[in-house]
């Protein structure tokens, strides 16, 4: 009996330690961010900020401040990227799911290719080409770079969403008089919507977080939040960097909760098929 109690106790202890370590590694950096965001003065040898205050929050959220401008730029670019990828991935995903395309697997892999090579090498070349055709330093250029990067998620998830819809559901509509387009709009699209919403959220977050491509194609004219964060932390302004990082966290966590609701197992199981 005592042995059993001891072993249960030690198991509990190990579990507690495990959870504690996990929390430390996950929440430790976050706590540091929060601390930095309210530290007005903090220097060695002090373990905690010397003076606290919301001065830097006011700096960041000043309507004329860099942060607000980059936030607007970032969100605008992310929304545009969502639209572009949806325009490509809805028809592409449907075709991949429904039509007996030759080289189907090859086409799916094609969308994966941009991830397969070192991104810096790719972006340097993209930047060169964009420079020739005058897209460097433009929002359109950044949107394009983000879209290519995000297409892999959106096409694969859209294809999975469409192939999880039983084709008889579409035939049932055609059968009683619906045209192919009417069938797509009234049956297929509503049924695929959760998957498409999930894909869009992934794309939105990818774009919001994207750094390398924006760095090579957008700088210096286009400054997104990650670039602002980079500039601030390189310039030693840890307060602004921390606040920017916290702003970036909000949509990530919020959307992850939504995705968890939308992306059902039957869709997930079809990804990559």
């Amino acid at each position, binding site marked *: 009996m005592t042995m059993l109690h001891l072993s249960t106790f030690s198991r509990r202890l190990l579990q507690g330690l495990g959870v504690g370590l996990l929390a430390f590694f996950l929440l430790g950096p976050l706590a540091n961010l929060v601390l930095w965001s309210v530290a007005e003065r903090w220097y060695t040898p002090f373990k905690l900020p010397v003076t606290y205050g919301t001065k830097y929050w006011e700096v960041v959220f000043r309507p004329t401040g860099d942060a607000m401008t980059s936030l607007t730029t970032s969100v605008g670019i992310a929304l545009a990227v969502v639209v572009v990828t949806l325009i490509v991935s809805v028809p592409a995903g449907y075709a991949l799911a429904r039509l007996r395309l030759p080289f189907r697997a090859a086409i799916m892999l094609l969308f994966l290719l941009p991830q397969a090579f070192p991104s810096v090498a790719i972006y340097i070349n993209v930047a060169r080409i964009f420079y020739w055709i005058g897209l460097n330093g433009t929002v359109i250029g950044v949107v394009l770079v983000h879209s290519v990067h995000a297409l892999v998620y959106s096409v694969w998830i859209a294809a999975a969403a469409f192939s999880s819809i039983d084709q008889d559901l579409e035939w049932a509509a055609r*059968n*009683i008089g*619906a045209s192919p387009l009417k069938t797509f709009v009234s049956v297929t699209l509503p049924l695929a919507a959760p998957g498409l919403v999930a894909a869009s959220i992934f794309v939105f977050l990818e774009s919001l977080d994207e750094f390398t491509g924006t760095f090579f194609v957008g700088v210096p004219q286009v400054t997104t939040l990650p670039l602002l964060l980079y500039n601030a932390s390189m310039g030693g302004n840890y307060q602004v960097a921390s606040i920017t990082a916290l702003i970036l966290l909000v949509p990530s966590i919020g959307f992850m909760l939504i995705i968890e609701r939308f992306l059902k197992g039957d869709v997930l199981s079809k990804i990559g098929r």
Partner: protein
Amino acid sequence: MSQSPVAAISVRGLRAGYGASSILHGVDLDVAAGEFIAILGSSGCGKTTLLRTIAGFHPLTDGSISLFGRDVAGLPPEKRDMAMVFQSYALWPHMTVAGNMGYGLKLRGWSASAIAAKIDSLLSLLGLEGLGERKVTQLSGGQRQRVALGRALAIDPKLLLLDEPLSNLDAKVRLSLRYELKTLQKTLGFAAIHVTHDREEAMTMADRIIIMDKGRIAQIGTPEDVYDHPVSPFIARFMGADNQLPLCFMQKDGVAHVRIEGLEDHVLRWHGRPYEGTKTGYINEEAISLVEPDTDTNQSIILKGHISSRAYPGGQYRYSIACGPYHFSATSDHLFAEGEPVELRLPLNRLHIFDTQTA
């Protein structure tokens, strides 16, 4: 019911397949207005492909399909005026019961009030009163298939296509829905093609049965035709004539006799239609009776054997009887012990005789 001079649907030389592999090898079939046809066959015989080709879901490679004299072979499914009920129900989960049933009417530009009235009458016809605003995902299998039937009937189709609609339902619901479907078809008078692999379902529902084998029609006829007069060993076995015995016909003293191979003492007077040479006889187990000795052997073959095993599936006993090298299955009300000697009576008129198959 008055039969229209033009067939509800007329299919000629229909061929279809997937890629290089051909599934249907030239199918001809006619369904009269108001007629209920069952297409029966084992899986992979092409019956579902035939139905889907008629509906326009599957392209045909050759042949013609005409609906009341109008050629529909080249038309997309939405222009064919047919309605299908699917094995998987195929109800749209993002719509209510009424939404599903009213979909076809909405496409046809009916007013909201006319649709509501039609749906109400369908709901009561199908025993679904008060369920109009339910989500289809909240319904039982039987209710879902009723909704699917309502969705198909709402548009008053000229032809109803039924793709194994009862296969996914549990036995009790299946039996009651089978009866309801048949009653509805008789009252409303539409023509129907019902695909099934269930022999009893086909026999009890259909006016005529089409039995398919390997992409061809093996026999068309009334339930009595196909059961009592199968045209091939395949049909005989499909209709449950699982007992086989080789029959060797010969003349003895100028009179027809039959010898059953392997049972040397069985040379019997043959009272049936004249045959020559060695044939194979097929007979259903319910046609075989276990009899007392000295029964009138006229119009029958009597075989001596003994009970090799017994089962009680309910109602009657089912026996396996060994007669020399042969085993027969038969049913009887009487209880026999295993090993007990019995006599089997095989009525000649229930014996289907075909050439012996070499394969």
